[in-house]
């Protein structure tokens, strides 16, 4: 078992190539395609698991998760305002990024557990969907205040009908309706190729992350510190929630990773339109340039240990 999973090595390859300004880029169409495959695959997996679960039993946990998705950005905001001395819009936007989740990070954690044959509650994919949205609303409210000239209709459309939600939800539903038997015929594409697709996705993510280096240099140390401290704090919360929910070690690791991850698909797009005065360079430098690499390189193994530790306490 290598200390770093191969898929993570693809991220490092992309990162290195990007920093060395190598002649390497995946066509944007391919990056979109890989994203679509990941979102559908994760949704399908979650849906199949869900089919084997009493939905009702999940409701309280789902509410708890949504609560975390609302409170974490609210907690991050003052830190960004005071600690970072950031403008209101920037603090609100970054808070939204960290309150929401990263599909890529979740996928790496799933692969991480897969390599180590660690079981986890498959319905966590539902939490992924649930966590995508609330932080966006919180971010907009933090930036705009309630009501004052927010087009809630347009925003709801933007948020609920964004690419990632539609594909995750769609996958969930199809997996849930079809069940493992119904999904079997499409498994060769969505399940068997999952880790390979993830590897290519991470190669591209590495190239994109490398592109954040310059703005990171410009906007300095605070973003780096926040980009490492925030996920660890969120992961701690997630670990606690996992313990409360009585999740397995794998499930706890995954939930911690979910909360620790920062969005770079749904939230940046929504913030760009709903909070124009927020500088996307700041939020992307933090979430793509710092937190994403940190989570997949150091965070996930760390959260795994944390989960094991709490279990030993619990048991």
């Amino acid at each position, binding site marked *: 078992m290598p200390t770093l999973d191969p898929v993570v090595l693809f991220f490092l390859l992309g990162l290195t190539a990007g920093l060395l300004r190598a002649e390497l*880029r995946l066509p*944007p169409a391919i990056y*979109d395609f890989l994203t679509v495959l990941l979102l559908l695959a994760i949704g399908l997996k979650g849906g199949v698991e869900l089919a084997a679960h009493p939905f009702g039993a999940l409701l309280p946990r789902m509410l708890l998760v949504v609560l975390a998705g609302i409170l974490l950005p609210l907690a991050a905001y003052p830190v960004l305002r005071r600690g970072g001395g950031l403008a209101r819009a920037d603090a609100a936007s970054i808070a939204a990024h960290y309150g929401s989740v990263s599909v890529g990070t979740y996928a790496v954690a799933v692969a991480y557990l897969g390599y180590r044959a660690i079981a986890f509650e498959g319905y966590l994919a539902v939490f992924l969907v649930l966590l995508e949205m609330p932080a966006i609303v919180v971010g907009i409210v933090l930036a705009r205040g309630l009501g004052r000239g927010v087009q809630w209709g347009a925003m709801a459309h933007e948020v609920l009908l964004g690419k990632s939600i539609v594909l995750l939800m769609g996958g969930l539903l199809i997996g849930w309706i079809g069940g493992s038997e119904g999904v079997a015929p499409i498994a060769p594409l969505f399940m068997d190729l999952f880790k390979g697709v993830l590897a290519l996705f991470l190669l591209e993510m590495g190239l*994109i992350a490398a*592109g954040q280096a310059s703005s990171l240099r410009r906007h300095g140390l605070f973003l780096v510190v926040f980009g490492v401290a925030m996920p660890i704090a969120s992961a701690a919360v997630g670990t606690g929630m996992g313990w409360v929910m009585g999740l397995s070690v794998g499930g706890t690791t995954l939930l911690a990773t979910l909360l620790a991850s920062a969005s770079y698909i749904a939230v940046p*797009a929504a913030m*760009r339109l709903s909070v*124009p005065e927020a500088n996307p360079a700041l939020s992307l430098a933090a979430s793509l340039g710092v937190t994403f690499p940190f989570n997949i390189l150091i965070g996930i193994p760390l959260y795994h240990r944390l989960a094991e530790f709490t279990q030993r306490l619990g048991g």
Partner: protein
Amino acid sequence: MSLESRKLLTIVTEAALEHEVTVEIQRLGAHGYTVCDARGKGGRGVRDANWSMSANIRIEIVCPAATAEAIAAALKERYYDNYAMILFLSDVEVLRPDKF
């Protein structure tokens, strides 16, 4: 063949604005528009189109001078402060003035 003169307004901006801007320009009187994918560099740095957040679009609108200037003014007012955007006008001749 009779040619009449119109204005060509060219806008280069962030891909994220495609929907919003195309709605806006029609509200302001454009009868049509053409969009191409683009990348580039400007005051807000390099936009290499490697992913959606760094992609540009290039919008062209053929219309009467008045409409062109109204759109230009509105876009400047609404977007210049917070978005990567430039626009420029030029003179063109068209075959069907009624159309534009």
